[in-house]
Every structure is written in C-alpha cells, then in structure tokens.
C-alpha cells in the first residue's frame, strides 16, 4: 500500500455541501475525543464555522466494548455561521458494536455509516445484546454503510514499523481520521505536525500514527466503495483572526487576561472536579503571567485560600462544579460579609449530588442565587458559548473588583468541553480593570481612623485595604459589622441596615441591557434563555423564522442583577417561553420578580437541547397565540 498522500489518482465526485455533522463513536479507550478534536482543528484551520459536542462516560475506562463505555465526539462544520453541534449526525463512525448500538438511532435514514468491522465479533455483539450481526442482516439498509476492517488494515500498514500488534491497532483512530479527512478534503499537515509534537519523546509512535493517518487517507483514495468526497467551503465569518477554543480554555484565558487587565496577581485555589479540572490544568501552565495555582486538600480549602489571597490584594479565584459549590457555600457567605472580590467559577453538571459528572445541566442557578444562609446576595454571570467564556470571565472580574463582592460564573459541561471558532480579541479592546487599594485613613469624624466599611457612595463598595498598608490595620470577619467602622455589632437597626445595604449594592450593579433578536419586529412570542442554551435556542428560532413565523429571542448573561430593561422587554410580548436544562429555575425568578406568566420548557437529560425539538415547541407557542 502506498503511503503517498495525493489526490487525483482516481476520478472521484466532489459534492459541495454547506454543512456536515460527523460523529465519531467508539470505546472510551479508542481515542475518539482526540480524533474528534483533530478533525475539529482541521475544520477550523480550513475556515469553517464549527461547534462540537464531546460526550463521554464518567468512568475513565469502563469495561471494554460495553454500552456504558461508549465515548463520542460530534462535530458540526459549515460554510456559514452555525450555533450548535447539530441535532443528528450525517456521518457516524462506529468503532465497535457498542458504539453502533448506542448511536445508530440518531443517524437519520440516508446517513453515512462507517464501521470498523474488526470489532464485530460474536463475543462483542453478544456483550451489547445483538442477537445477529447487524452488518450481515438488513437492519442497516436505510444507511450508506461502509464496512472497513480498520484494525486489520492499520496493523498491516504498520507491520514494517516493528510495533506490537496491540500498539499498531491502537492507531486505528488515526486511520479513521485519515479516511474522514480524505472524504472532506481536509488538510493533513496540521494533524501530522500535531502528532509529531504530541509524541515528541516517542518518535516511533508519532511516525506510526502518521502512517495510520495516511493509510486511512489512501484507503479512501483507492477504494472503489468511496465514490464521493465532500467539500464544505470556508464560512463567511466577521473579518479577523480566529482560533478554535473550548469553554474551559476560554475561561482560563479570561482569568489570565483579567489579572493582566486588573494589574493584579491571580491566585487560583481549587480542588479537582469534573468538568472543571481543565481550568486548573490550563492556569497551571501560565504562571509566567503571575498566576499561582493551589490544589487544595478540599473544595473548602480551595475557596478559603482564594479568599485569603484576595485579602492580601490578589485576584482570588476558585473553580468547581455543583457539588463543590455546595461545599464552598459558607466561604462564599464569608466573602459576602467581608465584601471582598472573589471569582467563583461553577462548571455545572448533572445533579443532584454526584449526579452526572460528565453531562451538562443548568440546575445550579438557584443554588448560585440563594444557596447560602442568611441574606447573602451574589452577582451571577453566565457565558453563552465556549468562546464567550473569555468575555464572561472579564465581566465577572469587573463586577467582583468594582463592587468588592464574590461573583458566581455559571458555565456548564456543554460549553466547557465544547469548542467553536473564537475571534481573537485585539488586546486594546480589553477593559481596564485596574483597582485602587486604600492608602489613607478615611474616617469622616476627624478621628484619623480607618473605617473599612465606609462605602463608595456610587457603587456602595467598601475600601480594599491590604495588609502591609500602614495606618489601615483593621479586622474583618463573619460577624455582623457596624456600618462604616466595621466593628462587631449586634445592634438590631444596624443589622437591618447592613442587610439592606448589601442587597442594594448587588441590585445596583451596572450591567448591559439585554438585547432582543427579533428580525421582523413583529414577534409576539419571546424566548428567554440564559447560559449555554444560546446556541440551540438561536438555531431553533432561525428554523421557526424559516417556516415564516415571527419569534424573538433574548438571552441573559446577567442573572443577578437582571438587566434594567428586562421587565420592559418581557412586557412587550404576549407570551414568554423559558427553555432551561433544569426544572424551571429562571422561569421561577422571572415570574417572582416581574409577575410575568412565563412558560417554562424544561429538559434535564444531561445533553443540550436539540434545535429540532425546540423548534417544535416554539412553533406550537406561535401557532397557539395565532389560533
């Protein structure tokens, strides 16, 4: 078999399509995440718009060949701007019977199925409950099936390398990637360069993977059964320089940038937890930006150390997922009471309790809002997409530093692991977040004292006086503070006043108005979302409009406080629909605050909404009003 990568040895039809959804599915040890990630990079480098949905089990290596062990990666790429990773794949790559069984229901009739036949042994079929081999009966007749003995071919191609059979077979995911790269006319240099860098210390493994990758490409090129390749032209995105980025990476970069914009050292105190650990991993690489990362003994120590660093004048940050927020609640309360800046990053996952660690959900909103003892208001910011995590981190930092308060940022598993193109910002456009520490006594009674709870009249923020500043020695803590002086106070009127002041400070935070996407201006139904449902809701609204109906979409970044214009926006529409991946938490807040008869549409399946499903729901609402 030739290993030359070349095109044109065989006449192949090239079909132009505007969008494709590919799903790679295999055993959790098959390297499907890596394969998907590489294909994503190829699509990104080509200039397609894209969105991805990794979906993997919580177990690192679930029993081989079983349904719980199936790991998949879905990629949607297009020549126009897209909003979601796609509801259903056009192409399904199934590396074993379990992957086929777990995913075939999502493949629409007429879809392309590429199967690794080597794993379709009697034993593997039985393991997942196939009575007969689906490759040998009529059960897959609705699909274009390509049966490829990926392991056998990869092994044969790698025989000259001298690698063991087992090691050689492990490269079959690169064979699959090569085949798909051929089908979609992708560049190959990027992946080859990537493999050489990834296995820099194991050059023989690097070359074996590159060989498997080229073998897959050549297989498509030379095998008659693949008669068509596809071309997805670059997308016409806004001009500028782009890269591909996941939500967790964007969040980590946002924190680095926030430290730079604030001219403060960053201190991350954290404890590993899925799906937030990658924020720690990423920040740990960027100590040259003055970032300290502290892997604490538990969630509580993580946020405690972050708060301690804030007391010392650093930008304190902690990162976690829902169960970690539960543990951090008391310290968030302390930060509310001591009124210190603190960034709390919550990458939400399925709950309650340990729940679904690798799946997504939006069910921590009310925990973020109310999950503390006493009246303990905390601002909440939610990014809408992977790339938006960068801006959301800067915005959360702005609020934390300006108002001297802990801020909760609610990402989730979907955008944390998902990726999309990111228009890399011009550094000149980043906000100035610099702060002024207190340097002088401030008492208004001529005593020359320092009053740590004397507030800025505009923001109601208290001074940030860091240790080491002479003359400003003061004590803070969790006990109620006397207004202005900050001394312990049990005075009833003072407590009532302080509770109201802390609330007023959060209520008075300046946030941008919410914008409404209502192209016709005639919509009577408003869809209100928050966080990661932006893509599916936006895509569903486009579909509804393509059907000739009017619909408006508003998406909240600020959940506390709400934008000042929200009440007026809600009042403009006859029907407000709130889709959420929870049991209606935003809907509850909206109904309580604005007395709007908002309708909740909820799904708590651990997966993002499908655009098609939301389309059906929204069409019903539009028609219902018209009827």
């Amino acid at each position, binding site marked *: 078999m030739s290993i030359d990568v070349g095109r044109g040895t065989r006449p192949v039809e090239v079909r132009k399509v505007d969008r494709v959804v590919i799903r790679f599915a295999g055993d959790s040890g098959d390297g499907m995440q890596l394969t998907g990630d590489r294909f994503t990079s190829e699509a*990104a480098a080509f200039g397609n718009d894209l969105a991805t949905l990794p979906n993997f089990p919580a177990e690192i290596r679930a029993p081989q060949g079983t349904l719980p062990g199936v790991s998949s990666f879905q990629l949607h790429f297009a020549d126009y701007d897209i909003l979601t990773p796609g509801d259903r794949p056009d192409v399904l790559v199934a590396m074993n019977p379990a992957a086929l069984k777990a995913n075939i229901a999502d493949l629409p009739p007429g879809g392309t199925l590429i199967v690794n036949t080597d794993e379709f042994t009697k034993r593997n079929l039985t393991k997942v409950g196939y009575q007969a081999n689906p490759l040998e009966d009529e059960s897959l007749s609705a699909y274009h099936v390509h049966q490829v003995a990926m392991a056998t071919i990869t092994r044969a191609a790698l025989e000259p390398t001298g690698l063991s059979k087992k090691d050689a077979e492990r490269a079959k995911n690169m064979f699959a990637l090569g085949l798909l790269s051929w089908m979609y006319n992708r560049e190959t240099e990027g992946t080859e360069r990537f493999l050489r860098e990834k296995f820099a210390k194991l050059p023989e493994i690097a070359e074996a993977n590159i060989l498997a990758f080229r073998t897959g490409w050549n297989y498509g090129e030379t095998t008659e059964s693949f008669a068509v390749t596809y071309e997805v032209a670059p997308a*016409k995105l806004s001009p500028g*320089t782009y*890269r591909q980025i996941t939500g967790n990476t964007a969040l980590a970069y946002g924190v680095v940038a926030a430290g730079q914009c604030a001219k403060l050292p960053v201190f991350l105190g954290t404890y590993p937890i899925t799906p937030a650990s990658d924020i720690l991993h990423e920040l740990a690489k960027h100590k040259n930006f003055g970032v300290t990362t502290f892997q604490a003994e538990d969630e509580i120590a993580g946020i405690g150390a972050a*708060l301690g660093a804030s007391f*010392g004048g650093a930008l304190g940050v902690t990162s976690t997922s829902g169960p970690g927020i539960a543990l951090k609640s008391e310290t968030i309360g302390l930060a509310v009471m001591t009124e210190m800046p603190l960034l709390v990053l919550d990458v939400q996952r399925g709950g309650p309790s340990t729940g679904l660690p690798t799946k997504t959900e939006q069910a921590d909103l009310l925990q973020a809002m109310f999950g503390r003892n006493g009246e303990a208001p905390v601002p909440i910011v939610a990014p809408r997409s992977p790339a938006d995590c960068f801006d959301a981190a800067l915005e959360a930092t702005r609020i934390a530093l300006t108002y001297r308060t802990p801020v909760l940022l609610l990402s989730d598993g979907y955008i944390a692991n998902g990726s999309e193109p990111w228009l890399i910002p011009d550094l000149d456009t980043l906000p100035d977040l610099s702060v002024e520490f207190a340097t002088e006594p401030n008492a208004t009674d001529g005593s020359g004292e320092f009053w740590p709870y004397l507030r800025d009249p505009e923001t109601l923020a208290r001074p940030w006086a860091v240790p*080491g500043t002479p003359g400003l020695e003061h*004590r803070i803590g969790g006990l109620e503070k006397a207004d202005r002086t900050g001394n312990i106070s049990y005075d009833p009127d003072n407590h009532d006043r302080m509770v109201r002041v802390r609330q007023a400070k959060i209520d008075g935070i300046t946030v941008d108005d919410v914008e409404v996407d209502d192209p016709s201006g005639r919509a009577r139904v408003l869809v209100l979302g928050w966080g990661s449902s932006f893509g599916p809701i936006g895509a569903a609204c486009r579909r509804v409009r393509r059907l000739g109906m009017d619909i408006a979409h508003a998406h909240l970044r600020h959940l506390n406080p709400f934008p000042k214009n929200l009440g007026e926006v809600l009042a403009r529409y006859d029907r407000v629909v709130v889709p959420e991946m929870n049991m209606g938490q935003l809907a509850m807040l909206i109904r309580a605050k604005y007395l709007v008869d908002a309708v909740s549409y909820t799904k708590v399946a651990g997966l993002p909404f499908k655009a098609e499903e939301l389309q059906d729901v929204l069409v019903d609402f539009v028609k219902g009003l018209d009827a």
Partner: protein
Amino acid sequence: MTTIDLGLPGLAGVPTTTEAQKAKDFKTDQEVRWCPGCGDYAVLAAVQSFLPELGLKRENIVFISGIGCSSRFPYYMNTYGMHSIHGRAPAIATGLATSREDLSVWVVTGDGDALSIGGNHLIHTLRRNVNLKILLFNNRIYGLTKGQYSPTSEEGKVTKSTPMGSLDHPFNPVSLALGADATFVGRALDSDRKQLTEVLRAAAEHRGSALVEIYQNCPIFNDGAFDVLKDSEAKDERIIPLVHGQPIRFGSEGQHGVVRDPKTGSLRIAEVAEVGLDALVVHDATIEDPSYAFALSRLGSHDLDHTPVGVFRSVRRATYDDLARAQVNEAKQKPANLGSLLRGKDTWTVLAD
C-alpha cells in the same frame, strides 16, 4: 532558651521597623469579651508583649482565626486580621501567606476549631509546611457553644451533650501534628508567661508551619483542667521541660529523667539515681526522624501525669509558599505575552470582502 538557628528565619521578607514598639501598640480599642479568669487573657497579653521584640512593622502582621472563644483574638490585636469561619483559618491563611511573602501570618484556633471541624486543613497545612504560626488554644471543651466535649476531652467526660460520659478517644495534638509531619511543634501553658514566650519566639523564628499547643483554662465549662500542672507542689513531678541540648530531667530536685528503653527503642521515665546522668536523653529538637519527637509526645498520658512542654521538634524543610513563589518567579523568566497566549498555535484569518 529553646531558640534554634536554622538559617531559615521565619520572618525573612517581612519588613522591620526601627521604631520602638510596646505591648500597648498591639492593643485595639475593642473591649475584650472573654469570661473573667479565661486563660485567653494571659495568652493575649503574652503575644502582645512578645511581638515588639520581633520589631516587625505592625501592618505586616496578620492574625487569622476560625470560630470559637479563642478565635475572637484578632479583634484585640492592632494588626490586620480576619475572624473567619469554623475550622478554615489555616486554609485562608495558606492563600494569604502564599501570595504575600512580606507578611507574618498567625493562625489562632482552638481544640474544636483546629482538631474537629478543621482537622483536615490543619494536617494538610502542616504537611505542606506553609509559613504560618498556629496557636492552638486547647481547653479540652467547647466553650462558645456552652460546654460540649471536644476532641481533646478525656474519655468519659460528662457534659451537656454526654450526660452518661463521652465515648470518644481524645487526640494528643502534639502527636497528631507530628504524624502530619509538622516541622515545628511546641507546647506551652497559658499560666507560664516565660515559657510560653520562649515557645512563641521559637515558633516565630521558624520558617514553616509552627504548631504551638497552649493548655488554656476555661473557667466556666472546664475549670481547673490543667490545675495539676499549675499547682506549685504537683507541677514539678509532672511537667517535663524540653530544653534543646540539655538532658531531659524534671522533679523538684531534678531526680527524674527520660531515658531510651533498650527493649522497645522508645522513651520512658526513670530515676536519675538509678540510671545515672549519662543515661538521660539529651533533647535535640532538630532530629529529622519524627519518631523521637513522637516518643516524647507519648511520655505522658491524657491525665497529665507527665507533660512535656517546650519545643518537641524544629526541623528544616522547604516551605510550600516559598516553593510556590519560586515556581512563579521561575516561570516569569518566560515572557508573559497575552497576545500570543490568546492566539495559540493554530489560527486562521478571515478577510473582509
């Protein structure tokens, strides 16, 4: 005198002042609200009178506490301070000490705060060897919640929550700290200002986590818990002073001593007249192997029949905060170019039409 020069002074990096300081400079205008007769007053006075000898700038000293009677301490210290939440002071102090090498950071905690709700943070702080001084006020009772047994209360203790006697086996805080590989462990009595000050001084000069257990009397809920160590007649028979470089002996005439038991390899108490002076163990707090200090910590039992006081262990080990800062400084050799970080390796450009 138990000061040991380790060449790693705990206060390196903390700015000093040439201005003379007095104890009252460290007092605040806040009314001290401990119960009359509380041992906390004595410790507060000892700390306030000892700090001036360090000559540190007052603004570079921080006291952080958790919850409990002793945790009100920061309000009475005219330094920076934080009265935080139950058990978490070591974690908060770790973040502060790691991000600010110019601060002298002290944690004030009690037996419930440090050993019960905050036990996890205590052991991990000690093993990391963060440059913190931890003053553990041990009164063997829960005071602020009005008299329940604590993790250092004796077995069978009758309290409001244990009317038939407590079932818990108590911690020996010194043994626990040594088990967590603490680099500095000391013990002192609230009532012995001189000895307490010596241990505090040694702790301050130690670079790394220093745990000082202070036996402290609660006159309301556990009055007299340590009286046997204070009674002028009984105390000499019970208190074993640990003096670095000196044979370990005690008793009104120095008639008792500590020897190594050849059978078990451990330490035991013997009569000097029987074993001879040469047989006595010469105290060396700098022994790397923690089993020696641990053996010292096991000489007495919980009923205080024999109670070693002084510095059990003071050894040199790199501190977490120094190492963390060194990593950041090393990383800073690499330019911090935000633009190139954000761009990464693979970019593509969309041109305007």
